[in-house]
């Protein structure tokens, strides 16, 4: 996703408005120097591939996520899987679920579709709403700005979990559940994106090239599209990359609480709920979804962090492992001449990006904490 946006920015017609036509190339160069981010990107790519290929993979295994296998569980002992490691065999690669005998590998890869799909869907909604509201507030008159900013404040103040619980409980169960969960998370938690976009837009608005565009008679829409949006790409991508793992945790938590996707559709959060009493009798049942969740959230967070570093190296945390600061400094020095032209603009843009990054940092801490909590549960 980030690739697409960054790429679209490369052939920018107005050279002065973008932090250099070499922005995308520079971004890739900086990202490549970070080993942790590359590994994380590989893990994320693998997970996406697993999710997309779920029907194929389960077909190869010869299983599906909903068929019951009563012969594979010991009914008299509460339905614990027969055999070692939770019934791992050539037919059931990761064993079977206690009490039903459903194939755990199939449920895990189908569950990845829900977890990743809902998280990405929610992020798209958050970014769309956030950018529209943020830009509109920054470009509108005083009243529009006041109104939109207060609405944004209200949404920032809303506790995501409690609001989602309420919303998901009242919507009729006939509505497609994964779509609904994505919309609910997306439509509640867009406030911070809007705030960042508004602040960034206000900064860009005051710059000479935007004034020049306005003086030459461009209308607001055209200015927003041609002059402002390319400048917003960096902070928005950074923030979106950090929103994805947060949304994965949110979906898992909602499913864990029983208001996410409905059975028999598998999801990681739901597997955790069912598994949490089995941690002693069938530990792998709990460890599989918990591990999947941990790896996914960790990989996405590290990748998001890498993206942020690549877009704005000065905001990168000095404590992060594998940020490749030395090599990156070298890469930076090489490309100095490319960025020289945008020096004055960059300083101001950096200031606001730094603001965004600080906010993103605190968000990430919560995301990490909740991911850890999921794993412990």
């Amino acid at each position, binding site marked *: 996703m980030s690739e697409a946006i960054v790429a679209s920015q490369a052939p920018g017609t107005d050279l002065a408005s973008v932090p250099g036509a070499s922005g995308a190339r520079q971004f890739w160069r900086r990202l490549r120097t970070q080993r942790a981010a590359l590994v994380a990107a590989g893990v994320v790519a693998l997970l996406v591939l697993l999710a997309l290929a779920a029907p194929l993979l389960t077909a190869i295994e010869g299983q599906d996520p909903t068929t019951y296998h009563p012969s594979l569980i010991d009914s008299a002992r509460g339905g614990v899987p027969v055999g070692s490691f939770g019934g791992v065999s050539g037919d059931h690669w990761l064993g079977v679920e206690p*009490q039903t005998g459903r194939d755990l590998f199939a449920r895990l890869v189908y569950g990845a579709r829900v977890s990743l799909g809902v998280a990405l869907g929610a992020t798209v909604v958050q970014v769309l709403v956030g950018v529209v509201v943020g830009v509109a507030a920054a470009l509108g008159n005083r009243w529009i700005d006041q109104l939109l900013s207060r609405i944004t404040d209200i949404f920032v103040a809303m506790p995501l979990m409690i609001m989602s619980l309420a919303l998901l*409980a009242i919507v009729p169960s006939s509505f497609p559940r994964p779509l609904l969960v994505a919309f609910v998370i997306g439509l509640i938690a867009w406030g911070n994106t809007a705030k960042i976009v508004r602040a960034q837009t206000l900064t860009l608005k005051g710059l000479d090239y935007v004034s020049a565009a306005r003086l030459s008679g461009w209308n607001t829409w055209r200015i927003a599209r041609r002059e402002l949006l390319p400048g917003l790409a960096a902070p928005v991508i950074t923030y979106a990359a950090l929103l994805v793992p947060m949304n994965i945790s949110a979906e898992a938590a909602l499913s864990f609480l029983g208001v996410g996707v409905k059975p*028999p559709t598998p999801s990681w959060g739901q597997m955790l709920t069912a598994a949490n009493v089995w941690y002693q009798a069938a530990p792998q049942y709990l460890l599989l979804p918990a591990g999947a969740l941990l790896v996914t959230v960790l990989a996405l967070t590290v990748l998001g962090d890498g993206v942020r570093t690549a877009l704005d190296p000065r905001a990168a945390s000095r404590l992060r492992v594998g940020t490749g600061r030395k090599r990156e400094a070298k890469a930076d020095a090489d490309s100095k001449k490319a960025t020289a032209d945008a020096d004055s603009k960059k300083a101001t843009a950096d200031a606001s990006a730094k603001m965004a990054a600080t906010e993103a940092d605190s968000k990430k801490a919560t995301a990490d904490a909740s991911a850890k909590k999921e794993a412990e549960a």
Partner: protein
Amino acid sequence: MRQPSVIARRVAAASVTLVVAAGAAACGPKDNDAKGAGGDSKPQKGGTLTVLNANPQEDFDPARLYTSGGGNVPSLVFRTLTTRNRESGAAGAKVVPDLATDTGRPSENATVWTYTLKKGLKYEDGTPITSADIKYGIERSFAAELSGGAPYLRDWLIGGADYQGPYKDKKGLASIETPDDLTIVFHLNKPEGEFPYLATQTQFTPVPKAKDKGTKYEEHPISSGPYKVVKNENDGERLTLERNTYWSAATDAERKAYPDKIDVRSGLDSSVINQRLSASQAADAAAVTTDTNLGPAELAKVTGDKALAARVGTGHFGYTNYIAFNPKVKPFDDPKVRQAIAYAVDRSSVINAAGGSSLAEAATTYLPNQKSFGYTPYDHFPAGASGNPAKAKELLKEAGHPNGITVTLTHSNDKDFETSPEIATALQDALKKAGITVKLQGLEVNDYKDKIHSVKSEPGFFLAHWGADWPSGGPFLAPIFDGRQIVKDGANFNTGFLDDKSVNGEIDAINKLTNLDEAAQRWGALDKKIGEQALTVPLFHPVYKRLYGSAVKNIVISDWTGVLDISQVAVK
């Protein structure tokens, strides 16, 4: 006729559910074990028994309790006219005298019941127990502020429907007579041969009028049993019971009362309770639980450990989990469709979802599989252990659905392994094989209860359960299948809207019988007959398994309650 008692009945249903919800219901081999753990020595008096519970004893007023057979902890403090027989297995489903000398003498076609109290009965303060106190105890259960008990007294006693309780109506209930201090006579508005069962409930406990403090009475209820309440903290979260020195074992053949002190600690998580009971350290060695069953995962762990497995008590409570149909909703108006579903059901996968074969037994009858209920085996639509999809398809074809049907199954989102999503998904998987596509409609638990018990909003196809107020066919069949009990604007339990003259007539005829064994047989035969209509598909009867501490002896588990009887337990 049940309108006035709708709320009480719902509370009842809820309290029955609570008992089960504390752990997953489960069942197992029918060998009820009454084994004493912790050595071979005979049970001795003394020591402190600890009770580890999930739910606090919030109500300790005899008027407000909804119990089966007098309850567990309450039965230590409250003696009643009759009580359940404190023996293991089927013998424990009998009703026996408690304060009275016998289980009641019926006359005039079982509409008048007379009881005589034993001599020398005393309260914890040494004052004598009189029949007037029992009358007063029953009367106060009619007061609106002390509601919560079973609806039967209101339905059965002459004038009961309009009586407002002794605080508003000083004259009292004329249908309860106390000609002398030891005699009490009840006048009913219709024959009720099962009145002795009703007299086990805590509403039949004596309450001295002079000590009654209304809603505050529960802070210190006056004991007639072997223990008195010494401390009640945080609304029943922590209770301390000590010996009532005026109680005499000579007048009480049922309660053994071995421990000197009972320490009830509640508000604990069910997994914590089972963890503490399995560790059985320090005071927990002398601990039991009266509300927490072993769940499937805990059972898997316990059965792997021989020493631990020896400390599991197994019991059967009269309870049935089933599929219910609303025959007013298409396509369930067609008996063939209902029968097809009955054939397609895979009971083994449902039982696995409910916790496995140790925690649930397959049910093909609506009545629980116990003698006291008049259990008469039948299987009108034999599905075998894992369903007969071919026969189901055939029936659907006959009903005009050669390409199968799509139906919605309503269930609760409770985590009770009874009406919960696990059971619904197991059924969904089984019915798929018969060409029946099941869509699941999971409702929040209160919403679910409101919907299935309302004539207007009752879904066509849903999961349901029913538990016994006492171990007999009456409270099991009458509320569900008596056509005169269909409640149009309130909580309705006749969910199949059966209003069959012959069924109603047979219910009346059985209620006249005072020979409870004969009545049981007739209930069983009636159940078999109603079963032909396929208004329900019985799924399973739960089996209760509970851990107890390593020092606990004299385990008695009756078929009446299905759980360890706290009045029999010894810790020395």
